[in-house]
Protein backbone atom coordinates (compact mmCIF):
# COMPACT_ATOMS: atom_id res chain seq x y z
CA UNK A 1 0.00 0.00 0.00
CA UNK A 2 1.52 3.31 -0.98
CA UNK A 3 1.14 6.52 0.94
CA UNK A 4 -0.98 8.05 -1.81
CA UNK A 5 -3.67 5.44 -1.13
CA UNK A 6 -4.25 6.71 2.43
CA UNK A 7 -7.08 9.16 2.80
CA UNK A 8 -5.64 12.62 3.32
CA UNK A 9 -8.45 14.83 4.57
CA UNK A 10 -6.70 18.15 4.76
CA UNK A 11 -2.98 17.78 4.27
CA UNK A 12 -2.93 18.71 0.63
CA UNK A 13 -6.14 20.70 0.59
CA UNK A 14 -5.23 23.07 3.38
CA UNK A 15 -1.61 22.70 4.38
CA UNK A 16 -0.25 24.10 7.61
CA UNK A 17 -0.20 27.91 7.31
CA UNK A 18 3.50 28.16 8.02
CA UNK A 19 4.20 25.98 5.01
CA UNK A 20 2.52 28.46 2.73
CA UNK A 21 3.61 31.64 4.39
CA UNK A 22 7.32 31.05 4.70
CA UNK A 23 9.13 32.80 1.93
CA UNK A 24 12.58 32.49 3.46
CA UNK A 25 14.28 29.68 1.60
CA UNK A 26 17.47 28.17 2.92
CA UNK A 27 19.61 25.20 2.01
CA UNK A 28 19.82 21.84 3.73
CA UNK A 29 23.17 21.35 5.47
CA UNK A 30 23.32 17.72 4.36
CA UNK A 31 22.14 17.61 0.76
CA UNK A 32 21.91 21.27 -0.25
CA UNK A 33 18.29 21.06 -1.26
CA UNK A 34 16.21 24.21 -0.72
CA UNK A 35 14.26 24.11 2.53
CA UNK A 36 11.95 26.53 4.27
CA UNK A 37 13.26 28.47 7.23
CA UNK A 38 10.73 26.76 9.51
CA UNK A 39 11.21 23.30 8.07
CA UNK A 40 12.31 20.93 10.81
CA UNK A 41 13.42 18.12 8.51
CA UNK A 42 14.72 18.09 4.99
CA UNK A 43 12.15 16.17 2.99
CA UNK A 44 14.80 15.19 0.47
CA UNK A 45 17.40 13.51 2.67
CA UNK A 46 15.57 13.42 6.01
CA UNK A 47 18.19 15.44 7.89
CA UNK A 48 17.00 17.05 11.12
CA UNK A 49 17.59 20.80 11.13
CA UNK A 50 18.82 21.57 14.61
CA UNK A 51 18.45 25.33 14.52
CA UNK A 52 14.69 25.20 13.91
CA UNK A 53 12.36 25.09 16.89
CA UNK A 54 11.05 21.57 17.38
CA UNK A 55 8.57 21.09 20.24
CA UNK A 56 8.95 17.30 20.25
CA UNK A 57 12.74 17.47 20.49
CA UNK A 58 12.48 20.14 23.18
CA UNK A 59 10.05 18.05 25.18
CA UNK A 60 12.22 14.95 24.88
CA UNK A 61 15.39 16.75 25.92
CA UNK A 62 13.64 18.29 28.92
CA UNK A 63 12.18 14.91 29.90
CA UNK A 64 15.56 13.19 29.66
CA UNK A 65 17.19 15.99 31.66
CA UNK A 66 14.51 15.61 34.32
CA UNK A 67 14.98 11.83 34.38
CA UNK A 68 18.74 12.24 34.72
CA UNK A 69 18.29 14.73 37.54
CA UNK A 70 15.92 12.40 39.38
CA UNK A 71 18.29 9.47 38.92
CA UNK A 72 21.19 11.55 40.23
CA UNK A 73 19.13 12.70 43.22
CA UNK A 74 18.07 9.12 43.97
CA UNK A 75 21.68 7.95 43.77
CA UNK A 76 22.77 10.75 46.10
CA UNK A 77 20.01 9.84 48.55
CA UNK A 78 21.02 6.18 48.47
CA UNK A 79 24.69 6.95 49.03
CA UNK A 80 23.88 9.34 51.88
CA UNK A 81 21.68 6.72 53.51
CA UNK A 82 24.37 4.04 53.23
CA UNK A 83 27.01 6.46 54.56
CA UNK A 84 24.77 7.26 57.53
CA UNK A 85 24.25 3.55 58.13
CA UNK A 86 28.02 2.97 57.93
CA UNK A 87 28.68 5.74 60.44
CA UNK A 88 26.02 4.39 62.80
CA UNK A 89 27.47 0.88 62.56
CA UNK A 90 30.96 2.16 63.25
CA UNK A 91 29.72 4.11 66.28
CA UNK A 92 27.94 1.07 67.62
CA UNK A 93 31.06 -1.05 67.15
CA UNK A 94 33.17 1.51 68.99
CA UNK A 95 30.62 1.64 71.80
CA UNK A 96 30.58 -2.15 72.12
CA UNK A 97 34.38 -2.25 72.10
CA UNK A 98 34.49 0.36 74.85
CA UNK A 99 32.28 -1.64 77.24
CA UNK A 100 34.95 -4.16 78.39
CA UNK A 101 37.55 -1.40 78.52
CA UNK A 102 35.30 0.68 80.74
CA UNK A 103 34.57 -2.36 82.91
CA UNK A 104 38.26 -3.13 83.32
CA UNK A 105 39.01 0.45 84.20
CA UNK A 106 36.21 0.40 86.78
CA UNK A 107 37.61 -2.74 88.38
CA UNK A 108 41.09 -1.24 88.53
CA UNK A 109 39.85 1.98 90.09
CA UNK A 110 37.74 0.05 92.57
CA UNK A 111 40.69 -2.09 93.67
CA UNK A 112 42.97 0.85 94.11
CA UNK A 113 40.35 2.75 96.08
CA UNK A 114 39.66 -0.21 98.40
CA UNK A 115 43.36 -0.61 99.23
CA UNK A 116 43.89 3.01 100.27
CA UNK A 117 40.64 3.95 101.97
CA UNK A 118 39.96 0.96 104.24
CA UNK A 119 42.64 1.69 106.94
CA UNK A 120 41.65 5.33 107.03
CA UNK A 121 38.06 4.38 107.60
CA UNK A 122 39.01 1.91 110.27
CA UNK A 123 41.19 4.47 112.02
CA UNK A 124 38.39 7.01 111.92
CA UNK A 125 35.99 4.50 113.48
CA UNK A 126 38.52 3.66 116.16
CA UNK A 127 39.14 7.25 117.00
CA UNK A 128 35.41 7.86 117.27
CA UNK A 129 35.10 4.91 119.66
CA UNK A 130 37.91 6.09 121.84
CA UNK A 131 36.72 9.64 121.88
CA UNK A 132 33.25 8.75 123.19
CA UNK A 133 32.80 9.94 126.81
CA UNK A 134 32.81 7.15 129.28
CA UNK A 135 30.31 7.17 132.16
CA UNK A 136 31.98 8.10 135.36
CA UNK A 137 31.34 5.59 138.15
CA UNK A 138 32.57 6.21 141.62
CA UNK A 139 34.88 3.61 142.87
CA UNK A 140 32.91 2.87 146.00
CA UNK A 141 29.40 3.10 144.67
CA UNK A 142 27.01 0.44 145.85
CA UNK A 143 23.67 1.91 144.92
CA UNK A 144 22.56 2.45 148.54
CA UNK A 145 21.83 6.09 148.08
CA UNK A 146 19.43 5.23 145.33
CA UNK A 147 17.62 2.70 147.58
CA UNK A 148 17.37 5.17 150.38
CA UNK A 149 16.01 7.75 148.10
CA UNK A 150 13.28 5.42 146.96
CA UNK A 151 12.40 4.53 150.52
CA UNK A 152 12.06 8.13 151.48
CA UNK A 153 9.64 8.62 148.65
CA UNK A 154 7.48 5.81 150.02
CA UNK A 155 7.85 3.43 147.19
CA UNK A 156 6.99 -0.11 148.02
CA UNK A 157 8.18 -1.79 144.94
CA UNK A 158 11.78 -1.08 145.51
CA UNK A 159 13.58 -3.82 147.18
CA UNK A 160 17.01 -3.57 148.56
Amino acid at each position, binding site marked *: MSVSEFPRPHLTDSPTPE*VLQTADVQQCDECGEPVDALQRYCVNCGAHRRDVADPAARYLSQASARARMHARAAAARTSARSARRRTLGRGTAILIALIPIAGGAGVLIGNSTAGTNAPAHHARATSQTTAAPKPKIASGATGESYVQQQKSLGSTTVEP
Partner: protein
Amino acid sequence: MRLRREPAPDAQPAPAVADADLLLQRERLTERFALMQSELGGLFYEMAIRDHVQMDVLIARAAVLQRVDEELAEVEARLAAG
Protein backbone atom coordinates in the same frame (compact mmCIF):
# COMPACT_ATOMS: atom_id res chain seq x y z
CA MET B 1 18.62 -3.03 5.03
CA ARG B 2 15.97 -5.23 6.57
CA LEU B 3 12.75 -4.26 8.14
CA ARG B 4 11.09 -7.61 8.66
CA ARG B 5 11.12 -8.41 12.32
CA GLU B 6 13.25 -11.43 13.03
CA PRO B 7 13.35 -13.46 16.17
CA ALA B 8 15.81 -12.05 18.67
CA PRO B 9 19.32 -13.49 18.39
CA ASP B 10 20.17 -16.23 20.82
CA ALA B 11 20.46 -14.47 24.09
CA GLN B 12 23.53 -15.72 25.87
CA PRO B 13 22.92 -16.48 29.51
CA ALA B 14 24.08 -13.31 31.20
CA PRO B 15 26.01 -13.27 34.42
CA ALA B 16 23.84 -13.48 37.48
CA VAL B 17 24.56 -9.97 38.62
CA ALA B 18 22.45 -7.21 37.09
CA ASP B 19 25.29 -5.04 35.95
CA ALA B 20 25.13 -1.32 36.41
CA ASP B 21 26.70 -0.94 32.99
CA LEU B 22 23.80 -2.82 31.45
CA LEU B 23 21.32 -0.56 33.18
CA LEU B 24 23.18 2.48 31.93
CA GLN B 25 23.29 1.03 28.43
CA ARG B 26 19.56 0.35 28.52
CA GLU B 27 18.89 3.93 29.58
CA ARG B 28 21.04 5.31 26.76
CA LEU B 29 19.46 3.02 24.16
CA THR B 30 15.97 3.86 25.36
CA GLU B 31 16.69 7.55 25.08
CA ARG B 32 18.19 7.09 21.63
CA PHE B 33 15.27 4.96 20.49
CA ALA B 34 12.73 7.52 21.71
CA LEU B 35 14.59 10.34 19.99
CA MET B 36 14.94 8.47 16.71
CA GLN B 37 11.33 7.39 16.71
CA SER B 38 10.26 10.96 17.35
CA GLU B 39 12.49 12.11 14.51
CA LEU B 40 11.02 9.51 12.18
CA GLY B 41 7.53 10.69 13.03
CA GLY B 42 8.58 14.30 12.63
CA LEU B 43 10.18 13.59 9.28
CA PHE B 44 7.07 11.84 8.01
CA TYR B 45 4.93 14.74 9.23
CA GLU B 46 7.18 17.22 7.46
CA MET B 47 6.98 15.22 4.23
CA ALA B 48 3.23 14.73 4.53
CA ILE B 49 2.36 18.38 5.06
CA ARG B 50 4.49 19.29 2.06
CA ASP B 51 3.09 16.45 0.01
CA HIS B 52 6.58 15.17 -0.56
CA VAL B 53 6.63 11.76 1.08
CA GLN B 54 9.73 9.79 0.15
CA MET B 55 9.36 6.23 1.23
CA ASP B 56 12.99 5.29 0.62
CA VAL B 57 14.21 7.97 3.03
CA LEU B 58 11.65 6.94 5.64
CA ILE B 59 12.50 3.24 5.26
CA ALA B 60 16.21 3.93 5.62
CA ARG B 61 15.52 5.81 8.85
CA ALA B 62 13.23 3.02 10.02
CA ALA B 63 15.99 0.46 9.40
CA VAL B 64 18.40 2.39 11.62
CA LEU B 65 15.72 2.63 14.26
CA GLN B 66 15.16 -1.12 14.01
CA ARG B 67 18.82 -1.80 14.78
CA VAL B 68 18.58 0.31 17.92
CA ASP B 69 15.39 -1.53 18.84
CA GLU B 70 17.19 -4.85 18.53
CA GLU B 71 20.10 -3.67 20.65
CA LEU B 72 17.67 -2.50 23.30
CA ALA B 73 15.81 -5.82 23.25
CA GLU B 74 19.08 -7.69 23.66
CA VAL B 75 20.10 -5.58 26.65
CA GLU B 76 16.70 -6.03 28.25
CA ALA B 77 16.89 -9.79 27.73
CA ARG B 78 20.30 -9.88 29.40
CA LEU B 79 18.98 -7.84 32.28
CA ALA B 80 15.97 -10.11 32.65
CA ALA B 81 18.20 -13.18 32.60
CA GLY B 82 20.53 -11.68 35.19
